[in-house]
């Protein structure tokens, strides 16, 4: 993750109307409105004069969520030892609304000295205050935090959408409620650790260094901070440099909750600051969510130390659809699997494995469904796919999609209008994809689905597991015993059967193989933040 840019020339092509702007990068689009196949129930009556099979051109009135609920400050500081402070060299960086390319605020950029100061504050708080606090008192602070997040939920949702580009209906209905629920769930564990580890005494590790990504900024913060605090640790958290604002709003929640100073510290900054944080000899625990490439660097940084570490890294999930699946439900699950959060999801179902006998009707239904997806203003309550998080990420998606075309896969994109400004990308579907194609191997982290086929369950397993990743997988079939046999053979930490992209604080989440190790969520999530001793 790099510093976000502000302004500057827009490099990003718009496939429908601007294909000529960047002919070298962006392939031409195979669809146009005359080829759209609408929902079967939505065909226009003959009297409308739209022609047979034409989609009803539904117009949606704008339904913007009000920004009034949130006050975006011009300037945000670091949150260290309970206080908002400038960085030691006074440096700031801009965070941008990816839907408008406008600067939202200047954010203090932590220096290594600031990080060290935060670690010292966390260490002091852990030894003198938080670690000594009875579990039932820690619990009440965490319950308070959960409640305040619920009370200020719309403020968080709007700010999250402005800073990250995700649709308001997702930040409002998924990110923020799940983040609050995460604090709620772990609050109750704080005074019950002896029941989570029978026969053992669970001790806190000390200071946890936590580095989180930009795709679910507040939710990842909750995944990291809630179990750490419940177990008696204090934290220094580095949010992603493109999405620091909800973490800094969370600092305000900590103040409102009267959380003792130093228990939570937040140090926005670039990747080097994250490396400085995890490399410190004064942290006892490292937790990272992000790409496998950066995860390996962080793993290297703790090699040879006694630090505990958990890594939640990339994925290239297979979403396997058998011929007996309920196809309409599967289509919804596939769409949710890859277009949820613009596909910027580590566990996204980016490889659709369709049984050969149904691949044609399935792809037709998918194309129909894609034509109804609304791409645009993330703050509009009707928007399904918002803005890509940053220019850098949009360039990466664009490059990989161009590689997919160059390697011979067939591209389909619905003909939807994209906003004039902002980082947007059409929902994209590739057919005729080979396992060797980059779009079938590399994590794209964008709204790009690759369709592959299989004939037998064995072949599906072979293809699904043919990746260094192992974060998640999906199985669609009406046959229960087949679900369970696929579940057993899939090398993935989460398997969604007849559903996809579901999350819950009680449900452990994490990867096999190069998707990382350790689990977040559930009782298992506590294990990453404790040292077990004999009774």
């Amino acid at each position, binding site marked *: 993750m790099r510093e976000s840019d502000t302004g500057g020339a827009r490099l990003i092509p718009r496939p429908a109307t601007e294909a000529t702007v960047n002919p070298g990068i962006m392939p031409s689009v195979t669809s146009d409105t005359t080829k759209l196949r609408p929902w079967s129930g939505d065909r226009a009556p003959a009297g409308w004069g739209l022609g047979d099979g034409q989609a009803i051109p539904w117009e949606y009135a704008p339904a913007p969520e009000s920004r009034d609920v949130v006050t975006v400050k011009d300037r945000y500081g670091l949150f260290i030892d309970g206080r908002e402070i400038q960085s030691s060299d006074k440096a700031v960086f801009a965070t941008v609304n990816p839907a408008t390319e406008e600067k939202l605020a200047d954010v203090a950029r932590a220096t290594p000295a600031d990080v060290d100061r935060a670690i010292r504050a966390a260490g002091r708080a852990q030894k003198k205050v938080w670690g000594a606090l009875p579990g039932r008192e820690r619990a009440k602070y965490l319950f308070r935090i959960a409640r305040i997040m619920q009370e200020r939920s719309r403020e968080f949702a709007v700010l999250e959408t402005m800073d990250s580009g995700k649709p308001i209906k997702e930040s409002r209905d998924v990110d923020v409620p799940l983040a609050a*629920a995460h604090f709620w769930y772990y609050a109750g564990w704080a005074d019950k650790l002896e029941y989570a580890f*029978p*026969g*053992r005494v669970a001790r806190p590790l000390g200071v946890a260094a936590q580095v989180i990504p930009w795709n679910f900024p507040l939710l990842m913060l909750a995944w990291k901070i809630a179990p750490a605090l419940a177990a008696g640790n204090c934290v220094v958290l580095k949010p992603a440099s493109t999405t620091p604002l909800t973490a800094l709003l969370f600092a305000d929640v900590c103040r409102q909750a009267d959380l003792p100073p130093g228990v939570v510290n937040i140090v926005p900054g670039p990747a080097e600051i994250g490396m400085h944080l995890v490399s410190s000899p004064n942290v006892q625990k490292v937790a990272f969510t992000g790409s*496998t490439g950066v*995860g*390996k660097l962080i*793993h*290297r940084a703790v*090699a*040879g130390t*006694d630090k505990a570490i958990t*890594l939640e*890294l990339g994925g290239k999930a297979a979403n396997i659809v058998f011929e007996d699946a309920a196809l309409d439900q599967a289509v919804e699950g596939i769409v949710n699997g890859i277009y949820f959060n613009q596909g910027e999801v580590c566990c996204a179902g980016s490889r659709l494995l369709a049984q050969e006998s149904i691949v044609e009707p399935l792809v037709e239904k998918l194309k129909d469904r894609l034509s109804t997806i609304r791409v645009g203003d993330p703050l509009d309550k009707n928007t399904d796919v918002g803005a890509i998080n940053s220019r850098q990420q949009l360039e990466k998606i664009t490059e990989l999609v161009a590689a997919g075309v160059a390697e011979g896969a067939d591209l389909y994109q619905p003909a939807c209008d994209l906003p004039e400004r902002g980082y947007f990308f059409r929902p994209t579907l590739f057919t005729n994809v080979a396992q060797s194609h980059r779009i079938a191997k590399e994590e794209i982290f964008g709204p790009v689905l690759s369709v592959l086929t299989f004939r037998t369950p064995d072949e599906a397993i072979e293809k699904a597991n043919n990746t*260094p990743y192992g974060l998640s997988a999906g199985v669609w079939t009406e046959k229960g015993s087949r*679900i369970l046999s696929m*579940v057993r053979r899939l090398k*993935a*930490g*989460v*398997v*969604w*059967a*007849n*559903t996809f992209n*579901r999350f*819950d604080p*009680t*449900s*452990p*989440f*994490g990867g*096999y*193989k*190069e*998707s*990382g*190790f350790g*689990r977040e969520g*559930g*009782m*298992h999530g506590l*294990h990453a933040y404790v040292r*077990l001793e*004999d009774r």
Partner: protein
Amino acid sequence: MASHGPAASPRIEVRKTYKLYIGGAFPRTESGRSYLVSAADGTPVANACRGSRKDLRDAVRAARAACPGWADRTAMNRGQVLYRVAELMEGRRDQFVAEVAQAEGLRADRARAVVDRAIDRWVWYAGWADKIAQVLGSSNPVAADYFNFTIPEPTGVVGIVAPETSSLLGLVSRLAPPLVTGNAVVVLTSETRPLPAITLTEVLATSDVPGGVVNVITGRKAELAPVLAAHGDVDAIDVWGVADAARRDIELAATDNVKRIVRRPAGVTDARFDWLDDRAAERPEWIAAYLEMKTVWHPIGV
């Protein structure tokens, strides 16, 4: 007619060739190399194989091939198979006692205690086979209409750099935890005290542990541990027996494919660890270190 009866000439002992254990067979190292192993008092005892990188790679291939079959056994079956290892060790108890005493320089009663504990440790871990999923697995009450559960599965191929000091009890204590849940293992034995480990492979070969599930290489740790750590088809590595000075480099090599790295607890030294202390040396956490948690969601509805 003078005849030389048996009593007249001393019997010449049939010595054992100490070999590697790969894929259920006992090959000598492909490298043709050996090194002299001495007793604790310095007396030369035998030539052990000085295993090579190629031997190690063969062992990893054998382990990978054995993985699915071992993992697919029922938990109860794996428990019985590992319990049988204890049964067969019991039958060779005197041999193990003599070898451990020689290798570690222990008095007979102490060596006996060590071997007894090694046998009992198999029994303790074998009993976990059909229980660990109930202790570590969970049914998760998610806030929506889904049935959601989490089950442990074996990580895959585990490399073990065995304790250097405790040649049998330490080895068994590190080997049993990954085995009991269905992992396959490649062991780099104690470099200076490898012989009890080789005798253990003879027990494994005659028990019902399938060939390839345990593979044992003797040789120089400095030469072989980096190869094991860097191997792309090894999923986890136990660095207990790596010298402190070498640990960072070994762990760095292990990060390339995001290996699970299993370490001694902070502050614990290999030489001082008390393997006879059941509370310290029998830990369900050590089983959990080689498990992946798989969470499954399914909607509840009609």
